């Protein structure tokens, strides 16, 4: 009734609105209550992954462009604002949008060149593009810092988007996430949302119904890239270190997509849900198993991933939207009977 009604698509209700406002209020208040910097870091991290996954979701979830190369956009944002800041002293608040512009340009290039590719072909092509960018950045040392990356001198001020108190970072990240979620909500309910959904389901049919799929693709990947780049800048100004083997890596791209999928791709709150689940889980596992048996943490993580996919292939969101069907699935997955047994008749002949 409560959460589900809020999440049901195309049915914005007053209750839903109030509920989301309440949730936002709680969110905003939360960091104030628990204010030690580890907690803040933790909250930041959840918000950060939610943001990255939500940005991915627009292309990967809504438009069916299953990208495994989003690290490229993210990296362009991180590198763009950081280079401008370090070389020209440009405030990251402005550099952020320059970086995002570069990401949009790169996305447009990728989008235009991969128009005909679908499914795994698109995914592989997106990896290839991201790798090409990574290799270029690694080898252009004089400008990009090469494999060593860039390390931002810590010089706290609002203009530098650097703060001694992590609370700032948390609120900035929260604001960014809320904006992206809002964009997603509006998009989903608008005609563009329909066009994207149609394109995702069947490109040719969408085209025949008047959807300009070329524009729809470029729009979705462009918007997604833009938002990913913003996330990149926010990341860079918090961690203060960007290096290609992290922010441009395939692993990073995969993790972003993973969170959206675990949560439920193509739903506004799916990425948030994914981050809320995955980040604490991995943090807990790492803290728990560090220093004991090496590898145990990733082993458990991998196993959980498998179980999750087997049990909830459509993501957590599907479990919230259709709790009963999911419960049945769960019972089925763990060997219980899902429905009454086949009828057994006494006599073999009718």
């Amino acid at each position, binding site marked *: 009734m409560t959460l589900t009604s809020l999440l049901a698509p195309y049915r914005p209700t007053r209750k839903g609105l109030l509920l989301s406002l309440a949730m936002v209020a709680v969110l905003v208040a939360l960091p104030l209550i628990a204010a030690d910097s580890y907690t803040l870091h*933790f909250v930041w991290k959840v918000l950060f992954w939610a943001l990255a996954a939500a940005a991915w979701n627009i292309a990967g979830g809504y438009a069916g462009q299953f990208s495994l190369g989003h690290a490229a956009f993210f990296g362009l944002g991180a590198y763009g604002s950081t280079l401008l800041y370090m070389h020209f002293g440009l405030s990251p608040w402005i550099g952020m949008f320059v970086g995002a512009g570069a990401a949009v340009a790169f996305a447009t290039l990728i989008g235009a060149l991969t128009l005909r590719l679908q499914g795994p072909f698109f995914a592989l092509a997106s990896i290839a593009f991201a790798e090409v960018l990574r290799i270029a950045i690694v080898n252009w*040392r004089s400008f990009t810092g090469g494999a060593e990356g860039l390390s931002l001198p810590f010089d706290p001020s609002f203009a530098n988007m650097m703060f001694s108190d992590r609370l700032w970072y948390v609120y900035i990240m929260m604001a960014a996430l809320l904006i992206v979620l809002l964009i997603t909500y509006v998009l989903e309910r608008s005609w563009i949302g329909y066009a994207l959904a149609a394109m995702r389901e069947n490109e040719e049919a969408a085209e025949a119904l008047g959807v300009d799929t070329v524009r729809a693709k470029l729009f979705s990947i462009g918007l997604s890239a833009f938002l990913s780049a913003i996330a990149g800048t926010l990341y860079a100004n918090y961690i203060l270190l960007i290096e290609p083997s992290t922010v441009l890596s395939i692993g990073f791209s995969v993790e972003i997509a993973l969170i959206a999928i675990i949560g439920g791709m193509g739903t506004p709150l799916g990425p948030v849900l994914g981050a809320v689940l995955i980040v604490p889980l991995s943090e807990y596992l790492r*803290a728990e198993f560090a220093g004991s048996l090496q590898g145990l943490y990733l082993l458990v993580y991998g196993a959980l991933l498998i179980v999750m996919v087997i049990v909830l292939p459509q993501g957590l969101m599907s479990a919230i939207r259709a709790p009963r069907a999911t419960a049945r699935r769960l019972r089925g997955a763990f060997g219980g009977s899902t429905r009454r047994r086949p009828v057994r008749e006494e006599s073999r002949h009718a």
Partner: protein
Amino acid sequence: ADPLKIGVLFPLSGPMALIGNEAYQAAEVARDMINKRGGVLGRPVTYAVADAPAPTAANAEATRLIVREKVPVIAGSYASSLALAASEVAEREGALYWETIAVADKITQRKYKNTIRLTFNASMMGQTAADFAKDIAGKLGKDPKDLRIAVISEDSEFGQSVGDAAANQTKALGMQLVANERYSRTVNDLSSLVLSLKAAKPDAVIATSYLNDAALFWRQVRELDLHIPAMIGIGTGYALPDFLAATGASADGIFDVDAPASPNVSNLPEATQKLYAEFIEGFRAKEKRDPGPLGLIAFGGFWTLFTDVIPRAGSTDLAALRKAAYATDLPDGSLLTGAGVKLNQIGEKEAGQNSRALISVMQWQDGKLQVVWPQSAANAEMRKVPLPKWSDR
């Protein structure tokens, strides 16, 4: 007494886990040894362990160690990217960051007050390799200005900075830089690189490699019959027993520039010799094998912290710790590797960098890595300079 908790941050899982764990094991031996001696400041030492496979994790874990575990010092970390991320947190949150192994120059170039590094940096390694090449020019039958040097490196942050330093030093010393190549450490084949070198005809190759690419390179050098009169490796790739296992007898005569794996113990002061024996024994008992060079370095870092810095600080207060750290003055030969400790002071260039870090050149000789340069640390004579042609082996 209540225990003294020290933060320990290494990559214990993920792609850097191999050496991360080696260093962590050495740290455990150091803790056990100090506790046997009654701990530090009369308190037993315990570790708050953090596994940081990547910089984001390093940031998170460093924060956790300082804020939650309330550790006064974080020691680590082996990988430079982790050191950069974690030391940044230490600077912000107020703890001493004690780097024992990571070599990126940048770690001590950010003017951070709380970041100390006991080991050398990447540029020093690259320069040493070039210095060494010049030193053996005579043995190779060449005048240094005619010595043809090829620099190759894998393209990680370590390889790039070491490679650049080696290339620059080669030019600075007036030698011929005939090739300067980078490659990805995940390659499955280096034949094109070997063939490029074949065309460049170097007298010495200075190679910064990780392990699998080091083994791959040397295998293909042999297969493609490239004669390299002097092969100077830099870093762990050429030093690990795994390298020997992968290349067998053909490794004989290869140089490696690194902290000494088996320093000439007899050259060390008696106290250090004892310590050395105790550490080796402790490590063997725990891990059933000998420690590698990074284990030695890591141990030295932890041991200095426990036996010198914290006792002199007298408390775990940050200011006191920092003051004590910067006042450290251990002569050469104090650490197991033969190095000493004296930090560049705040305000100086590269504050927090140990100026007495020792880089040595080792050589594979009959399956053992012997220190052959500089003379003061050497425990064996250099041999096979130049290396015999493949057809003569």
